[in-house]
């Protein structure tokens, strides 16, 4: 009986992982923006500008 808590904990973890995996498989893949967006600015002049 002393083993029951650890067994239950292990079962809970397994169920949790299963649910997590199932949830993730249905979740849309959303690109993660981890970077601030910089903008390349190019200005074209002519000799007569």
């Amino acid at each position, binding site marked *: 009986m002393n083993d029951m808590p650890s067994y239950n904990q292990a079962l809970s973890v397994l169920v949790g992982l299963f649910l997590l995996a199932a949830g993730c498989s249905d979740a849309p893949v959303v690109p993660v*923006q981890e*970077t*601030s*967006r910089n903008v*390349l*600015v190019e*200005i*074209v002049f002519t000799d007569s500008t």
Partner: protein
Amino acid sequence: MRALDSLSAVDYDSAMPVVVYMLPGRFNATPEDSARRSPPKTLYLDDSAVVNMELHQPSEYGEVFSGNIEVAKSRPSFVTLAAESTYADTADGIVVVRATADSVASGADLRLVVIVTEDSMVTQGFLNARWDNVARRVVPSYDGRPITLARGDTLYDTLRFTTIGLNPAQLGAAVYIRAANDLSVLQALSVRRLNY
């Protein structure tokens, strides 16, 4: 120059690499400049023409440019860029680029381009104006160096350029990565002054 002054006032400094092309033949970085950067008197954001400067007075540039820049900045970016520079020898410079893919579509055909710019270029006889951020070298070319990046990857690339005819104390760079299929720019970086 007035256009750049207007842009500077918006205070995008480090997040906004600025490159100036003088056409048709003044300070060209490469012979391709005239063909690629046409029509003139145009503002390009991330390689797309967005503003014909002839339609606006210089005093309006800041406001008009600012609106377009805000739109461009609102697009997501999935790459982190960093760059360092050094002299290879008396006639060559090196830019070492570090690119980290935070989230990049698998199989994306990406290209790395470095535009070496020079400040304090004076156009003799043409308003005697002083121009900053003038394109002087395109490394390796406008087509860019093909790179392969997947999510989580960090890539180091070394690009070499000749410094003959350039003032090493006035050099900076604009570094960018773009998609080869639609030429869209994914990320850009301003190196205000190359360290030699």
